[in-house]
């Protein structure tokens, strides 16, 4: 019995409508903690990136505090992302379907999802977000340590620091862009937010966006919590 697309805790409850558990409480908590750190990092980072946004340091109790806190939030983000990574890396692996899906991206964008190949728990775009964030967070952490004046000033040359500060800011920008796409996606496809808020989605949502995943859930006795009792 194939269950490539199922994550521990996914469950299907028949009824009208069919209700599916997509994210456990732990998973949701992990996601939102990561999301929060990202937002705080963006705010504090941007505050020191562009004078026009320096006022944002007010949120963190002034420039010095902003400078002091930012790296620590970075570490927090790192932990958060690690959690999500170990939770979801399997279901984010590349499948041939992703290729065909990508080819028909324009169809997806104009909303004709019914004409798209059936996808599993995540479609190509979601996987891209997952992996890119991973890479960028790694880059930001590495370059961030180099410019963490307070503790690591001594270990690198000024020129290395100059590279680091440039790389760090570019990586940050890209991340912010990805986050925007990520959030917009969630808002765009109605019924998605509930997944990260309540943890549940309707069968219809799954049928429309992640049919492959739905099929596996339905076909899986452990996941499919049928109501009818077996006959003698």
């Amino acid at each position, binding site marked *: 019995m194939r269950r490539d697309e199922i994550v521990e805790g996914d469950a299907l409850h028949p009824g009208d409508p069919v209700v599916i558990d997509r994210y456990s409480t732990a998973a949701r908590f992990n996601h939102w903690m990561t999301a929060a750190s990202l937002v705080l990092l963006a705010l504090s980072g941007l505050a*020191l990136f562009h*004078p026009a946004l*320096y006022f944002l340091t007010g949120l963190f109790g002034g420039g010095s505090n902003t400078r002091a806190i930012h790296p620590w939030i970075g570490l927090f983000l790192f932990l958060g992302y690690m959690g999500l990574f170990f939770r979801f890396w399997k279901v984010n692996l590349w499948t041939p379907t992703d290729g065909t899906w990508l080819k028909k991206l324009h169809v997806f964008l104009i909303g004709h999802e019914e004409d798209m190949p059936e996808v599993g728990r995540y479609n190509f775009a979601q996987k891209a977000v997952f992996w890119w964030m991973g890479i960028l967070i790694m880059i930001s952490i590495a370059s961030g340590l180099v410019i963490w004046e*307070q503790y690591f000033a001594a270990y690198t040359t000024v020129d290395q620091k*100059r590279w680091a*500060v440039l790389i760090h800011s570019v990586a940050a920008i890209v991340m912010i862009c990805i986050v925007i796409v990520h959030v*917009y996606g969630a808002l765009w496809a109605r019924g998605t937010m509930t997944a990260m808020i309540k943890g549940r989605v309707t*069968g219809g949502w799954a049928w429309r966006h992640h049919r492959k995943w739905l*099929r596996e859930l339905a076909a899986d006795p452990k996941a499919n919590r049928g109501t009818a009792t077996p006959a003698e």
Partner: protein
Amino acid sequence: MFPPLPNPSTAPGPARFGDKDLIRRSASTVTPPAQRQTEVAKLIDVSKCIGCKACQSACLEWNDQHEEVGVNTGVYDNPHDLTPASWTLMRFTEWVNPETQNLEWLIRKDGCMHCEDPGCLKACPAPGAIVQYSNGIVDFVKENCIGCGYCVKGCPFNIPRISRVDEKAYKCSLCSDRVAVGQGPACAKACPTQAIVFGTKEEMKKHADGRITDLKSRGYKNAGLYDPPGVGGTHVMYVLHHADKPEIYAGLPNNPKISPLVELWKGVAKYAGFAAIGALAVGSVLHRLVAGRSEVSREDETNAQRLAREEETKERASP
């Protein structure tokens, strides 16, 4: 000799320049004063310097700095590098002149060059933490400094140092407090041989010409003034006996400029970044308007129910 400055007056007097004379202020836009003050400059004549460290001593004393007592590491340079307390430092180089085979002991007073185009100020994210006065003095404002160390990356001469005590950046202020009352910097006042002199930038250049002529007459055919154009000129200049190779003076940069990386980071990156973010935001809105929302239909729900039921029965059917 170069006319010495008078003894300072102990009668409290007004400052000769202030905020109204700012031409640059970090992370802020200022409207420069209509009339710029005469530019001042400190001229360091390396060929007259006897490396006595009076400038270091005077700097520590005037600025009430407390440097740690270090160790000897086999050289005369003490401390071994600029520190948050030591804003100036004699750097000693033993150089054998390949042409004459004579040993030359090159001694250079290191410290802030007070660039006309200051990299530290350009890199600084904290409004008003670094300021530049119309007389050319580049000064750090402790109260506004956040200790991020960007100035270190911005400086082409590797001058600013961040204190581990209060996480603030420090460097030579050209004794702005003395200049403000018509005095010269403490180092220039102290320098026993007047290897350091202070005045208007024009006077300093004129004085330098005289020195260079003298040096040429003594066989230093490459004697010259170090006033690097790469940073728009500096308000601390050197007379060098070998101006053709500044790097032999403990690595004085040959044609210094603000690192292209910093330019990129503080320039293109900033604008491109915001452009990208903006574009995406707009894009999303447009997409929403054009493509509308992706809705789950009733049909989808029934399909899901059907699927769930069929599979369930399949399972029951199987033995």
